[in-house]
């Protein structure tokens, strides 16, 4: 370690004070406020009042709301699964391309990510609508006689979420496939493992950190992106994000909204923990 010179200290300290106070004031304190809000009582006049109570959490476990949460979990899990099913072979195929082509293809993958997500969701509406392009196309081809009712369904919301979040699944998967050493696959083959056995016992475990990172990057936003059900799902409360938004901006039940958001935070903590665990295991096996 370097010895701290006289000039170094003030610079270092100033930077640390700046970033720490930013994070404390705008991340830690606000989150503590949310926790505090979740144990307070809803108040019709102002937003919150005493006494402290666990009512909001009890309400979360009420069968009425539990169903809402299971529903939104289902949407997020379906989205993640579809992303994984599309993204896994995609990332694998990508890693097999030549180095130059790969740069271009990765670039093409992140272009949509840099485009306004609302506008892209809206573009999907143009395609999925009853008089939309997909139905027009299928009818012109004579494949269907009646337009399919696609818009304002759960399916449309899942399509929208997958469309917005797919790159977040592919990029971490791609990076683990890039590190996947060909020798390992050869070795597995030489040891007599068939393609399926190699896939199950070698490839999947080695790409697990990528899978988990992708799941984390898709599952969490998939629960929160409230504007997708608003536009493609007929304004139903299909995601936890919609419930939280309604509690804060319509029904004005802050304790309940706060408790719902803590649910999301816990889901995040759980996923991060799982990801870390899987990474550590790979590290041990590699060593």
């Amino acid at each position, binding site marked *: 370690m370097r010895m701290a010179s006289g000039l170094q200290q003030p610079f270092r300290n100033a930077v640390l004070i700046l970033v720490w106070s930013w994070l404390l004031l705008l991340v830690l304190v606000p989150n503590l406020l949310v926790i505090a809000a979740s144990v307070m009582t809803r108040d019709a006049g102002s937003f919150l009042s005493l006494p402290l109570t666990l009512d909001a959490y009890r309400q979360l476990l009420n069968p*009425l709301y539990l*169903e809402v949460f299971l529903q939104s979990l289902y949407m997020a899990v379906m989205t993640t699964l579809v992303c994984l099913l599309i993204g896994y072979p995609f990332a694998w195929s990508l890693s097999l391309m030549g180095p130059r082509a790969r740069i271009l293809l990765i670039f093409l993958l992140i272009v949509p990510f840099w485009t306004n997500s609302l506008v892209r969701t809206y573009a999907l509406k143009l395609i999925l609508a009853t*008089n939309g392009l997909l139905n027009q196309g299928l009818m012109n081809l004579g494949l269907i006689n009646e337009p399919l009712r696609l818009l304002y369904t759960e399916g449309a919301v899942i399509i929208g979420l997958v469309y917005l979040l797919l790159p977040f699944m592919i990029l971490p998967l791609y990076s683990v496939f890039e590190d996947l050493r060909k020798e390992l696959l050869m070795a597995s083959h030489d040891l007599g493992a068939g393609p399926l056995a190699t896939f199950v016992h070698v490839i999947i475990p080695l790409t697990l950190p990528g899978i988990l990172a992708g799941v984390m990057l898709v599952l969490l936003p998939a629960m929160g992106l409230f504007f997708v059900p608003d536009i493609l799902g*007929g*304004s139903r409360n*299909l995601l936890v994000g919609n419930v939280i938004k309604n509690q804060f*901006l319509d029904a004005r039940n802050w304790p309940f909204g706060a408790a719902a958001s803590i649910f999301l935070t816990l889901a995040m903590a759980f996923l991060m923990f799982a990801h870390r665990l899987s990474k550590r295991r790979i590290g041990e096996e590699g060593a």
Partner: protein
Amino acid sequence: MKKLALAGLLAVGLTACSSEEPQVLNLYNWSEYMPQQVLERFTDETGIRVVYTTYDSNEAMYARLKLLDDSAAYDLAVPSTYYVSKMRQEDLLMPIDRSKIEGFDKLDPELVNLGIDPENQYSIPYLWGTTGLAVDTADVGGEVTAWEDLWDKRFAGRVMLTNDMREVFHMGLRVLGYSGNSTDPDEIRQAYEKLSELMPSVRTFNSDAPRMPYLEGETDVGMIWNGEAVMAREVMPKLQYVYPDEGVIAWMDSFVIPKNAENPEAAHKFINFVLQPEISALISEDIGYATPNLAARDLLDKSVSNNRASYPNATDMINAEFQQDIGDDALQVYAKYWEKLKSGQ
């Protein structure tokens, strides 16, 4: 393209460079509830620029006003009847200085001095209207005359409801024969159960522009506001506005000035501007709702004033019920079931 970009830049530059701060009126209103040309004419006449921000439910409007209470965010808002009394009682409104308002005496005597705001100290009626049935007769065979008909299985996946808790429950309560303003938890629960039978048929909720799902061909039957139906018929004559047998939902929207408005002067000017018979008539003709301004009604084109969708006759209003304030406790009961209703397919 280059020219266009240049024009855009110029426009940006001009708005940014104008040295004098122009006066601004922050108007908080329902989506598409004020013709663009009215706003432009107001700006031309007074030099006050109107910033038009929208909401799609009274609840959202109320929550936002509460949230922004201290920051003097809006100068004018347009709540429905029952929210006028709620906001007045909670001391969220500024009294309206009647000496600055001309034309109040021309308003329909039946629509002023109501229980929601005796002597109209805090509110000036803007428009009134009804929520009834929309039927796309091109796609729907047979008669649809009652709210109850929406429960018909043949409409599966083709029904639209407004994204408005009170209105949807109003319909459910009326179908069961209860008052649309019920505060009885048991009646509300029954309405919820009745409505949940309808849910599998419901395609979408929309209070931003309830005509759009019909125009876009997504839904064929369901709820609609009368003005939206009138606007829709201009492009889709087959869409019918029906007064349901159980009774239509009636409401009135009024201008109110939030307590902390930054520019109440401009708000008064705007109310004044709208109360001019000519302007009120223009609004009613353009967006299809009924004006409470009797002087304006005389100026209306016959095709508008005889349009039963905009201006119902006495038979249309049989069983009609005005929405009323039901208190926070009952609202919480509604809110709980509403959340649940909207959560599934």
